[in-house]
């Protein structure tokens, strides 16, 4: 059992030399190194990139994808795929643009609304996959289409305005230094690190690694799967909230571009797409790396037409690399 447990570099005690390789293969060590290296290149190309303003802007760009990738990680860890995030984020975005509620209270209400939307769709997904035993790709494909339709019904063309309080405060810096969006992502990571130690957290890994073994050990597989989808939905709701704060307007297709990138982020973070291995923190850094990559490409003068070629190539390489490295880890 201990083999499937995560060993994220951020939380474990000082690594012993023997477990150093496992740190790299199963934790977030590798992706953190990659991120820092990429940031160094970015800082070299754009000396202004290290100013608080630029860092906050990067965080604001990163937050929606990081949160969506964090949600995707829940489902992937429990051995499944979730396509519904494209629809959930779109619904949250258009809802906030059609029903702007001003002030801090309004923002709180808006967050709750987004979380409720995410949790409801997640519950539907969870019910379809865990209890009716539908294929997760197929079931979430259907819910994604339905959600995209709902988003189009709420707002059939880009437009509307997100409440100003959300737009300004959620993209601001505390004391002129700490980006609020970064804090939101950080608190999600902190929550996850606590959740991971609970029975539910352990059970997600167990179900993803070997469903039958988990079931025989007394894990309620259905409830865990269901919980993973609901947890994912909550994070998509939060991602939709942060995306709206960043774009300040509504777009019924706003979630679609994030879909592929969440898988890329999860794979970059080293989470096995076959389930049972990886972690949420690594996916968040994976998402940050992808966003940073776009900035670096832009600052090196690559036409934005060709961004997709790099994203696709990075995705394929990330999957191939993480499969290869986890195979080495297993042989060790």
């Amino acid at each position, binding site marked *: 059992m201990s083999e499937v447990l995560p060993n994220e570099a951020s939380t474990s005690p000082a690594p012993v030399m023997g477990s150093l390789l496992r740190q790299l293969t199963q934790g977030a060590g590798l992706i953190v190194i990659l991120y820092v290296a990429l940031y160094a290149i970015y800082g070299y190309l754009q000396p202004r990139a290290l100013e608080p303003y630029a860092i906050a802007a990067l965080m604001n760009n990163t937050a929606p994808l990081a949160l969506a990738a964090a949600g995707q990680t829940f489902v992937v860890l429990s*051995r*499944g*795929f979730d396509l519904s995030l494209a629809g959930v984020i779109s619904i949250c975005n258009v809802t906030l643009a059609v029903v702007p509620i001003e002030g801090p209270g309004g923002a709180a209400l808006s967050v709750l609304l987004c979380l409720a939307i995410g949790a409801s769709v997640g519950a539907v997904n969870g019910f*379809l*996959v865990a209890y*009716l*035993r*539908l*294929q*997760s*790709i*197929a*079931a979430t*494909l*259907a*819910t*994604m*289409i*339905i*959600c*995209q*339709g*709902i*988003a*189009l*019904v*709420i707002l*059939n063309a880009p437009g509307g305005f997100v409440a100003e309080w959300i737009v300004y405060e959620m993209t601001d810096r505390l004391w002129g230094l700490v980006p609020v969006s970064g804090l939101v992502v950080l608190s999600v990571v902190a929550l996850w690190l606590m959740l991971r130690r609970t029975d539910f957290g352990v059970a997600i890994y167990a179900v993803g690694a070997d*469903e039958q073994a988990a079931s025989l050990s007394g894990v309620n597989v259905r409830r865990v799967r269901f919980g993973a989808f609901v947890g994912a939905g909550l994070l998509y709701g939060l991602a939709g909230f942060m995306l709206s704060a960043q774009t300040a307007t509504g777009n*019924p297709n706003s979630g679609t571009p994030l879909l*592929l990138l969440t*898988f*890329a982020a999860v*794979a970059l973070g080293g989470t096995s*797409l*076959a389930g049972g291995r990886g972690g949420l923190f690594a996916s968040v850094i994976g998402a940050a790396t992808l966003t940073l990559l776009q900035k670096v490409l832009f600052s090196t003068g690559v*036409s934005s*037409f*060709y*961004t*997709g*070629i790099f*994203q*696709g*190539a990075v*995705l*394929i390489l990330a*999957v*191939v690399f993480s*499969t290869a490295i986890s195979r080495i880890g297993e042989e060790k």
Partner: protein
Amino acid sequence: MANNNPLAETTFVQSGDTRRSAKISRETISAIAVAVLCVVLLLGARFVSPSLGSWSQVETVLILGSFLVVLSFGQGLVILSGGLDLSLPAMITLGGILATNWIGSSDPGAWYLLPIVLLVCAGVGFLTALGIVILRVPPFIMSLAMSIIVSSALLGYTKGTPRGAAPEMAIALMKGSVFGLPAPILFTIGFVILGWLIQSRSIFGRYLYAIGTNVEAARIAGVPVFTAQVLPYVLSATCAGLVGIMLVGYSNGATLRMGDDYLLPSIAAVVIGGSSILGGRGTFLGTVGGALLLTTLGTIISAIGLEFGLRTIIEGAIVLTALLLLREELFQKLGSLWK
């Protein structure tokens, strides 16, 4: 097997009772049910609006349906082999844009470039397949990545605004008529017969059923697994390229988003046609029925004048219903009631 991973969650399905009669009847029943539903819908549409349900509307459905029939043949082969192809929109656009850019309307003698366009599409499909079979990238990730790579390359190649007009061959295929019948309908009938022969009557087709059911067992049984896994993606990409050329002939030009609306219907047609999304089961005739049913529904819904959002919701609900109805357990329960 790595390439089966995304589809491997619910593979603990019992297939103990495989009486031949039961198996045949299941697929035939869903194919017949879909066909009957199609006819009922077309006739029933008369009550909604008298202009519907006429012969000319049947013709429209068949012509519009031809795109989906060709496309879902390729998607069906990939799904049958245990994979999933999400690169179809990009491949449709690739076929369409290459056809308008390389051939255009100026030189009718350049028809020989059409097969070359299809060959390019086949080549990209081959790359997708290599990623899945050799690099072991999960099919839906590999095809999705290939999709954004090709879209991005096309965006750069056309600088955002596709030029050129439809080649005359493509226009003749979609707008012409032979012996008083529209050419696209005749073409579709020919394609369906060919597709049926490939999927249900050829050795290659059998191989697909074998690897879709169990790759390891197929390998042991002597199936050339590599070829059987690669060819579906090559054929799927070629079919999508062909759909791109057909769309160009139909609408007289290519756009960068011309393929976007076809991905979900291509999967939906296969699932509604009674194929298992897990692979190893399904017939092309069922898929053809699914494609025609979706097209019929689409024309009726747009005739009623529902807004796009509601149409999307209905489409999703149909896919979900089909998935729920085709559940393994449901059929097993029905089977046990029968006994």
